[in-house]
């Protein structure tokens, strides 16, 4: 049951083959049994889930509801959920229960989905391995000694292990796609502005974007359909109408123009990963696609540009965590400065503090032009590269990450190696275009994701491309051994 798709489960719920309460209990039991090994949840909201499931059953029995009604899902713990602890993976928010609901979670709730809980993540979404969580590292279901990727590592691991049907994630520099790749699931980072950021705790506002994480492109389409769309509460959300993501899934790919950027296949890429990507591309050629080599010449500059812009914005976004109104406050502050210093030193973990300091430095008087402004110029170049490439091809394909999931603790002492993990994903956020990770095979015993990038608001096209691939392959249907144990 836990391996089934949203549309299959929706049909079963509607046919009363199973009730939402039964389905919810089944998944809650899987969480209770398996999650102690994975640590993918920070909060499991059992009682609330059962209440939502009961409500969904009533709705379904009156013939109402959407394809998500009664389906158990989970949210990354940076979406504010009214009345439910929202930590952002940080000690800073260890006591934070929002009195409001994010737009994403509220839309998914309105669609009738049942929230089982909140998933673990790198603190404030800063990380590529999910080792930066105050609540401990998340393990990869395919190998418990490996990282699940980050920062949406909890969502990725939970979906891969069948603890939820689908989950939300957020992607600032690869935080949906890289863990999706490492855990062998499907994830979509939408166009910047496609999904509202209201109620999503900000890391880097000009890059952050929420998106769906699920086993298949079809499941992602169902979730995105509920999440996406203009929100007057987010000034950067787009008024471009949503496409119908479901009905576009079956368009044939004959004549699809695929661009392969040569910079994505250079030094640093694990040859076994490269082979898998090329095999996947051949599969598309069999479906009638045309492949063309392209160039994204500024790819290398995406790392320095990102690691100036994102920390700069973060240094400002995280100023509100000052111990004054909510969150962690140190004991017995002797004065205001002491309260600020100790509350923030105690509340934020090392990686967060590091990025706040980098960002503060980059924005400082005398350094702003050399760092922040320069980074913004590079950002424009990167965007222009993509705009040019996407005027010649329909989609761009390449690896999501240079390697498969690495060992827990293996890169924690080498931040630069950790940052290089994001080389293939960062530029997409800098440009603001949508991109997906699709399971495409296994190397080193671990899953490998194919990245598919598209033009602005081409989510329907990406989901169509991914779905057609998944009609012809079964990589997305693989289940880790540990998940079969319950």
């Amino acid at each position, binding site marked *: 049951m836990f391996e089934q798709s949203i549309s299959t489960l929706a049909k079963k719920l509607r046919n009363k083959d199973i009730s939402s309460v039964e389905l919810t209990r089944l998944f809650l039991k899987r969480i209770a049994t398996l999650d102690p090994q994975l640590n993918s949840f920070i909060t499991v909201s059992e009682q609330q889930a059962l209440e939502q499931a009961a409500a969904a059953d009533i709705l379904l029995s009156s013939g109402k509801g959407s394809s998500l009604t009664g389906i158990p899902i989970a949210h990354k713990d*940076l*979406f*504010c959920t009214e009345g439910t602890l*929202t930590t*952002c993976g940080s000690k800073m*928010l260890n006591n*934070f229960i*929002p009195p*409001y609901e*994010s737009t994403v979670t509220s839309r998914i709730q309105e669609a009738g989905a049942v929230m089982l809980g909140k998933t673990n993540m790198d603190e404030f979404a800063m990380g590529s391995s999910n080792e930066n969580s105050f609540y401990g590292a998340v393990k990869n279901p395919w190998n418990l000694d490996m990282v699940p990727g980050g920062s949406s590592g909890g969502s990725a691991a939970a979906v891969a292990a069948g603890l939820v049907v689908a989950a939300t994630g957020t992607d600032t520099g690869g935080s949906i796609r890289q863990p999706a790749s490492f855990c062998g699931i499907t994830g979509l980072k939408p166009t910047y502005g496609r999904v509202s*950021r*209201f*109620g*999503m*705790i*900000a890391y*880097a*506002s*000009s890059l952050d974007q929420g998106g769906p994480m699920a086993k298949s492109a079809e499941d992602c389409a169902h979730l995105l359909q509920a999440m996406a769309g203009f929100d*007057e*509460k*987010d*000034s*950067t959300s787009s008024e471009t109408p949503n496409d119908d993501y479901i009905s576009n899934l079956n368009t044939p790919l004959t004549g699809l123009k695929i661009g392969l950027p040569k910079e994505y296949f250079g030094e640093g890429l694990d040859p076994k990963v490269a082979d898998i990507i090329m095999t996947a591309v051949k599969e598309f050629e069999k479906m009638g696609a045309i492949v063309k080599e392209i160039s994204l010449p500024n790819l290398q500059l995406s790392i320095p540009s990102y690691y100036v812009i994102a920390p*700069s*914005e973060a*240094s*400002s976004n*995280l*100023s*509100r*965590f*000052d111990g*004054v*109104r*909510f969150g962690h406050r140190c004991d017995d502050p002797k004065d*205001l400065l002491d309260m*600020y210093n100790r509350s923030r030193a105690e509340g934020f973990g090392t990686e967060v503090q590091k990025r706040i300091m980098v960002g*503060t430095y980059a*924005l*400082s*008087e005398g350094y*702003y032009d050399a760092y*922040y402004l320069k980074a913004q110029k590079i950002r424009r170049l990167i965007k222009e590269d993509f705009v040019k490439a996407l005027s010649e091809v329909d989609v761009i394909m390449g690896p999501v990450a240079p390697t498969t999931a690495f060992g827990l603790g293996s890169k924690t002492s080498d931040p630069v190696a950790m940052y290089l993990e994001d080389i293939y994903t960062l530029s997409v956020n800098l440009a603001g275009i949508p991109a997906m990770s699709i399971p495409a095979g296994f190397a080193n015993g671990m899953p490998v994701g194919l990245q598919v990038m598209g033009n602005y608001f081409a989510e329907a096209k990406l989901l169509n491309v991914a779905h057609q691939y998944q009609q012809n392959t079964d990589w997305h249907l693989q289940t880790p051994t540990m998940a079969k144990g319950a």
Partner: protein
Amino acid sequence: MNWEVVIGLEIHTQLTTKSKLFSGAAVGFGAEPNTQTTLVDLGMPGALPVFNKEALRMAVMFGHAVNAEIGMTSVFARKNYFYPDLPKGYQTSQMDHPIVGIGHLDVTLEDGTTSRVGITRAHLEEDAGKSLHEDFQGMTGIDLNRSSTPLLEIVSEPDIRSAKEAVAYVKMIHSIVTYLGICDGNMAEGSMRCDVNISLRPKGQKEYGTRTEIKNVNSFRFIEKAIYTEIERQADILEDGGRITQETRLYDPEKNETRSMRSKEDANDYRYFPCPDLLPIVLTQDYVDEIKASLPELPRQKAARFQSEHSLSEYDANVLSSSRAMADYFESANAVVKDAKVTANWVMGELSKLLNQEQLDIENAPVSAQAFGELLVRIKDNTINGKTAKDVLQAMWEGEGSADTIIEAKGLKQVTDTGAIETMIQAILDANPAQVEQYRAADEDKQKKMTGFFVGQVMKASQGKANPGLVNPILTKMLKG
């Protein structure tokens, strides 16, 4: 040494939008702490700002009123610093691309001279909350009602050369923003706050001296006094061969002194950068033109019209147009009186005197412009004389009714019957034969001086009701026999 003072002003005006700059919370003064706030004003995690277009419109109106360039693309930037009443840890303001660019304003001084003050820029920004230090047993209370209230910060060039000119400039800005209806101009409630930058330089020197900034001066009178005090302080230091420290100072009106708040070394590095939560504001020419076309008449235009339309003097026209409320009162009253000179004299004279006595704004005058006009009509048609009119106005002020009601009730109607006046005069002449004798013996100059005595007696006998215009010629005639 002969010093020249150089002054530049930053004026924060609170805009009269219904809701805050970046949230739907109501704007208002004096509400219970933290009752006029939303997630956005509280800086809650995940809350996002949504720009209030009403504030944009007001800023563009101001730009037009000071002949300024309008920023067709303006950008909000974050000014980062930590303070407990700054909930997000940054103030959303504008830095490199303000909504209003370079403009200017002509300021008329009391001596009638006019000088031009350059406007550097005016930008939109949100206000912070308030820290409350009393009643919390040594702790600090935070009230975020004011958080995200819209401000337009108007920055002048260092073109001002005296305290008087500074006050005239602030008054002109006050008058413009209230004319436009974009600020209530209430300085006591902080709707308009002034930062004054002052430096001295030897007369004739081109380079500016080191300046100090006096923060948050909140009345016209304090601006003038603070400037005088600071000029004196700086001159003393310079004349002793000392140097001015660049710093922020605070004016204490009780001690009439300025004192140091923080020096430049302690100044924050605000790390301004474009706010990624808000898109740049891009205006169309149509939008800007439409606002320009819909601007109300401004103080200078109104003063010019008062001169041409009502033949008022420049001085009268300027006084009457100095506030929109005063100008409106004058025009409404004059619509009844139809004699601008009389209306102007009474508005600027007796009415202003009563307002000053009771420290009332003209908006709160207990006598409406209509009722005031009706009173003046009774002077013009000789029902009462000017002296009686003052008493009637006082009675109206105290709520005793309309001019006609009071005149009727108190029997104040002027005696205009020449026969009755002649009888009254005859009685006075009969009662004062010696004075009549003296008068008749005197030369013309002396006679003129003595007339006053008889007029006084007649007015006294008539309880002020005799029409002075009639008494004079009849009296002269009868005295001469």
